[in-house]
């Protein structure tokens, strides 16, 4: 069963060229994305800066309204329900933001931060519940942390508070938007293991948004590669890592730094273009080392080429 079913998600942001110019252009942050997340599973979403991964995460928890498309959370389409119903759904979907240094209110104690979502939703709770959650996220012993302010916590501890705040609502689904990118390497591993443990213990589904393929491969059962607002490859993590099909995924895999001295050839040209000027045909064609004539004209569609392994590329028929 899927906890999240997103279909044909589009998000266009209008931008004005300049204050004198009435002409409005659109940034196509997401341009037709399908994403399903199975119940109790961790799925990862990998993309560079500007790929649209954060926008997609925010749309899935109802923080940003999509321009088009439908999102079903536990079977309920959140794009066509009333605000009141949406509020109910939102209790079950939570998000952890990238920067723990700015996502916590500096004037709220740890205790108040974790309790706030419960209070806002008029849910009864006792001290013991808060303690349990804090212990679950390794803020131990809870008494030591309850009355601290964010500035009295380290980066790792702040991010644990952010998880506790998400977890206290017993959500079905959590979006974690680059939760470890601001943390030191030695702290990062513990945090990733914590996420894995919580996923198993609480049976909560998770979307891990990251730019780092090694993190995605460690934590996600499924992986989706996003490029310029479209998913270019998706499948079981093991399969995609060991048998990457899309030229972009291959380049990403080659580029990940791994331990040991080596010389690398990077075949991909240039950098991700501005989503105002999406190239015609396959959006990856100007950078692709194996682009063909057809790639400049026809946009490929995501199709299944192996069991559960989808790729959007003309190389695969």
């Amino acid at each position, binding site marked *: 069963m899927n906890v999240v079913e997103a279909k044909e998600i589009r998000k266009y942001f209008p931008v004005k060229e300049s204050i004198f110019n009435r002409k409005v252009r659109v940034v196509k942050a997401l341009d037709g994305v399908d994403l399903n997340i199975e119940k109790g599973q961790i799925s990862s979403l990998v993309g*560079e800066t500007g790929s649209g991964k954060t926008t997609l995460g925010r749309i899935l928890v109802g923080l940003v309204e999509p321009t088009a498309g439908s999102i079903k959370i536990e079977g309920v389409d959140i794009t066509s329900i009333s605000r009141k119903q949406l509020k109910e759904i939102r209790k079950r979907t939570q998000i952890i933001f990238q920067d723990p240094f700015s996502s916590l209110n500096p004037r709220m104690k740890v205790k108040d931060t974790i309790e706030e979502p419960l209070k806002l939703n008029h849910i009864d709770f006792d001290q013991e519940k808060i303690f349990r959650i804090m212990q679950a996220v390794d803020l131990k012993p809870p008494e030591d942390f309850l009355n601290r302010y964010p500035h009295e916590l380290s980066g790792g501890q702040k991010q644990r508070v952010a998880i506790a705040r998400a977890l206290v609502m017993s959500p079905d689904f959590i979006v974690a938007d680059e939760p470890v990118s601001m943390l*030191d*390497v030695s702290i990062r591993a513990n945090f*990733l293991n914590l996420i894995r443990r919580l996923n198993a213990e609480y049976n909560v589904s998770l979307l891990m948004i990251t730019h780092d393929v090694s993190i995605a491969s460690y934590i996600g059962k499924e992986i989706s590669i996003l490029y310029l607002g479209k998913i270019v490859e998706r499948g079981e993590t093991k399969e995609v890592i*060991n048998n990457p099909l899309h030229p972009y995924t291959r380049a990403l895999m080659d*580029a990940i730094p791994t*331990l040991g*001295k080596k010389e690398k050839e*990077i075949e991909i040209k240039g*950098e991700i273009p501005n989503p105002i000027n999406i190239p015609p045909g396959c959006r990856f064609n100007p950078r692709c080392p194996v682009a063909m004539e057809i790639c400049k004209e026809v946009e490929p569609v995501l199709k299944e080429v192996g069991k559960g392994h989808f790729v959007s590329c003309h190389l695969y028929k």
Partner: protein
Amino acid sequence: MTIIEIKNLTVNYKTNKGYVSALDNISLEIERGTVTGLVGESGSGKTTLGLALLRILPPAATIKSGEIIVDGVDILKLKEDEMVDLRGKKISMVFQGAMNYLNPLINIEEQVAEPLIIHENITKKEAIRIARDKLALVGLDENVWRRYPHELSGGMRQRVVIAMAIVTSPDILIADEPTTALDVLTQARIIKLIKSLQKEFNLTTIIISHDLPMVSEIADDIIVMYGGKICEIGRNEEILANAKHPYTKGLLASIPDPKTPKEIVGIPGEPISLLNPPSGCRFYSRCPSARETCKTYEYERYTVGDGHVVLCNLYEGSEDECC
């Protein structure tokens, strides 16, 4: 041949809560023409060490003791105007995030030429000619030379900053987190560029980074720092295959590798605060192999292999020979 030798360098920062011990009794040597990776997490003192090499520490910092010998000269004893001659010409630095601080009002060839106009007695025209050569060398072609920073992508701006650092033909290049905030593909290209420049000019290169895998792809030697102290120094291959210090081992165990999946294990606890640090080993509170004696441990260097030095109590008496 040794080009940089640091002896017992101690640097403190004054704050209103007390002193921060950013570097404590650092000693190291760097060979000419090699790539050294200086690895550590935030607050390990790695950037302070880079700044000390250029003697551009912030005003709150004081060098308590030590010597920094570059090509036989103790730069801590030089007068400021002698130091000005050294910066850029002998030692150059790519600062962390510098690509975001390019002057938005000056086109890039003029910005790259600026160090030449300051450090060498040449005309602006000549300086720009050299700047263009260097821009071409870092992979930026003619059509971007006269552009402004906002017209360039992150990777291109990082190339501009690198061109600026090498325009004065230094012997030593320090790159502080040169790939942070860049996308994976761009990161790989920047690293390749640094390596090719290093080869072409026999540049002694120091890469400061928290990213051990990235550093391990190009470094000849690796220096691991924690809490303002050196943990371990060794050849790259030696450190990866035969790490001795519990912190280095912990770091290696916490790195996921997508191609050979394994369980990763983080280091328990949090990085220590360098504000009034306790005596003894600074890694003590997080170390899985800590002993009682580590609490009062005076840092000693133990040579455990060819050029492999570890500063950890556990290796007392295990060195091959004393130095």
